[in-house]
């Protein structure tokens, strides 16, 4: 019963964070004047780019995750950890890193020019997709890899004993696994791409690549047209939740198939073709994801030593926000790791951060000074925004554990606490570590709602990066961005290590 009460409390607080701000904005708004042709164009582009981005990210992630699941090589853990980095970088930093490789005067064009090859043009829909795949391929890969590693090793051994071929293994083990993981991964990436704004605009090359979020921004910042902002925000929310519903419908439920939690060597995929393919996939992905990161690091090296005390202080604030968000997010996520919980959690990234920020401001303002609450609001919003990812990571495993051990629980009459302590949490260790690392890192990098809640004495590190850029100090900004990258990755590494993939524990 207690578990049920917790789930209800968690669900209500999440729903409240969606309904409250939206209502506050609508109540404060004047009459809504309708959508313009430009809005429809934005809606179309938003849908197209989000669908393609999610599709490509997931498609590429499947062979990559499979390759990582069945290969062991030195530096594999490091590679898996680094693969998480693009996802947690501040958008503008990642874009500059990507352009250093794929841009007009990027590495590729500089390599092509002497060979007489035509100039690579990054700006356009393909540029938007490239960037979104760069951000989300690692996430999709980790989600699918998580699923692969959760397959009891006994199944692979059994398949080997029965002499199942590649095709049979695909049908009996791998396909059901993907059906369980992929729809949710697609949905979460689709939703995050829905609210893309600065990336889509910059790499899309102009107003052709206008997304709904830009229209919301314009209504809010320039026109102060809250009705329009709220209406557009609701459209975006509706799209996201519909995508979530579809994912829910096509996701298959786990079947009870528990193993002995042992690490057993893999028998599948040891032939030459599979090996070559795996090496190619891992090599390509590593080059694609790590080269822009290396450029970010390279650009930042000169600036990082010139950073003043205030930047380090801001780094401290960001770390506390990150840790606070992580705790809150996990408290939210554990009771919500169910089908409907995950659907509800999608709202965290579906709701425009601008609508959320203004709504919270309107709610908080009569009771307290928003400036004094800056860091608390930021931590709460960051937890809220990370929730969909965390639920996507936790849910498949949480459900599998419930399916596998419910009979055991009934037979032994385990109390809720004993169940949590001895069965549920230990088996959830790997995804929990990953989820905590992701939340912490995401919270480090997120600017979110800070625009209305900024406090000069409690600035966060991403805010400092923007301030430096706004003051022409591009070199120092690159240095601060590198610091942010190091700290985010560090936190990610620390948490993720607790449940390191492929670990023998």
């Amino acid at each position, binding site marked *: 019963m207690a578990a049920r009460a917790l789930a209800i409390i968690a669900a209500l607080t999440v729903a409240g964070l969606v309904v409250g701000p939206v209502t506050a904005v609508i109540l404060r708004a004047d009459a809504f004047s309708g959508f313009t042709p430009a809005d429809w164009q934005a809606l179309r582009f938003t849908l197209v780019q989000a669908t393609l981005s999610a599709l490509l990210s997931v498609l590429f992630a499947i062979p990559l995750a499979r390759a990582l699941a069945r290969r062991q090589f030195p530096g594999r853990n490091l590679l898996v950890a680094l693969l998480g980095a693009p996802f947690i970088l501040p958008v503008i930093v990642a874009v500059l890193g990507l352009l*250093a490789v794929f*841009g007009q005067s990027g590495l590729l064009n500089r390599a092509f020019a002497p060979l007489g090859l035509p100039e690579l043009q990054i700006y356009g829909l393909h540029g938007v997709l490239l960037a979104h795949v760069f951000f989300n391929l690692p996430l999709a890969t980790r989600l699918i890899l998580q699923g692969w590693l959760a397959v009891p090793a006994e199944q692979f051994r059994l398949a080997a004993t029965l002499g199942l071929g590649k095709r049979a293994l695909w049908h009996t083990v791998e396909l059901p696994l993907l059906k369980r993981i992929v729809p949710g991964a697609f949905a979460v990436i689709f939703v995050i791409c829905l609210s893309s704004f600065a990336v889509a*605009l*910059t790499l899309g090359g*102009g107003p052709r690549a206008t997304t709904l979020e830009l229209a919301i921004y314009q209504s809010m*910042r*320039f026109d102060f047209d809250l009705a329009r902002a709220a209406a557009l925000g609701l459209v975006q929310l509706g799209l996201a939740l519909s995508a979530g519903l579809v994912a829910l419908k096509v996701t298959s439920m786990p079947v009870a198939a528990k193993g002995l939690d042992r690490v057993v060597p893999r028998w599948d995929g040891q032939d030459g073709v599979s090996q070559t393919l795996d090496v190619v996939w891992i090599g390509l992905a590593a080059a694609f994801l790590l080269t822009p990161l290396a450029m970010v690091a390279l650009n930042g090296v000169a600036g990082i030593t010139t950073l003043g005390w205030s930047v380090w202080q801001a780094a401290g604030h960001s770390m506390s926000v990150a840790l606070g968000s992580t705790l809150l997010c996990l408290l939210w996520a554990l009771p919500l790791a169910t089908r409907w919980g995950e659907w509800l959690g999608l709202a965290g990234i579906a709701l425009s951060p601008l609508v959320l920020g203004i709504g919270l401001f309107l709610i908080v303002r009569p009771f307290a000074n928003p400036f004094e609450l800056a860091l608390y609001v930021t931590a709460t919003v960051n937890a809220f925004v990370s929730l969909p990812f965390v639920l996507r990571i936790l849910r498949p495993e949480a459900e599998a554990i419930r399916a596998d051990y419910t009979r055991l629980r009934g037979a032994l009459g385990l109390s809720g606490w004993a169940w949590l302590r001895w069965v549920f949490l230990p088996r959830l260790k790997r995804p929990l570590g990953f989820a905590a690392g992701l939340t912490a890192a995401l919270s480090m990098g997120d600017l979110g709602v800070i625009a*209305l809640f900024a406090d000069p004495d409690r600035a966060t590190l991403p805010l400092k990066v923007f301030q430096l850029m706004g003051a022409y100090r*591009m070199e120092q900004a690159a240095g601060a961005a590198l610091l942010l990258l190091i700290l985010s990755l560090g936190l990610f590494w620390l948490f993720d290590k607790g449940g390191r993939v492929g670990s023998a524990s």
Partner: protein
Amino acid sequence: MKKALTFAAGLLASTTLVAAQDTPVLTVYAGDYIVSEWGPGPKIEEMFEAQCDCDLQFKPGDLLPRILLEGEQTDADIVFGLNTDVTKKARESGLFAPHGQDTSTLTLPVDWTDEVFLPFNYGHTAFIYNEERITDVPASFDDLLNAPDDLKVVIQDPRSSISGLALVLWVKAVYGDKAEAAWEQLAPKILTVTKGWSESYGLFTDGEADMVLSYTTSPAYHIIAEEDRTKKAAIFPEGHYFMVELSAKVAGTDVPELADEFLAFQLSEEFQSMIATGNWSFPAKLDAAQWPDGFKELNLPEKVLFYSEDEAAALRDETVEEWRRALSQ
């Protein structure tokens, strides 16, 4: 020892309490770029507190949305850093009071008679280039339109950025009814459009683009802070669009005298001599002879274009739509 520390802490706490009660507070809402330690905010605070016997507190964030959301309950006494594109909305809110300052002695390139919004610095829109990178610099706006398509320019989106909006008004002021055709001609040279100024300028300094939409004052930063004289503003005889930053007194302020004192301070020589390098803009009331050295070197436009608040508001939707249509093809 512990006792002594507690005593000292208590003493400190009580003195700050006394100070907080006795010293009037002037709350100034300002953009993040102002309040940041790399902006003029800290210097403004220091200079004004030295003369006012008060506590100036900057509150950063989105100026207009914030003050409109708060309405009459706002804590702000002064709003610092508004642009002309939002003054109409701000004026209509009725939240601001006349500034009462003499604007006849301002050194702006346009006449300023607004009784509510008081300028503190200005600049003009301009395309900045690196002279080591391009030699064939467009000598006029027409030249830019007719430049080969491999000249790559980054601009800001007029729907999300103030400088982007100034650009579409600039093109409108130069080309009038032919603005859309001008945009169509410019379109192939536009490498990309960014959300704000910082992203564009970052792309330019990273060598991604040949020219960037920025301000006539941008080279001053490179000259003064980096001793780099390769970044220049391309000056066009058709004229450059005027951009001014303004402040205003909140009508419901509980410290009206202090707010007035701040507005007077904003036009003082002390403030005006600082703001050029503080905010990388031309001072609103300071003869060119008194500008910092780097600013004296800058290329200045002969002709300055500017729409009044009402004209700009009337033209805005139309010009942004022309821009969007031309660049969406």
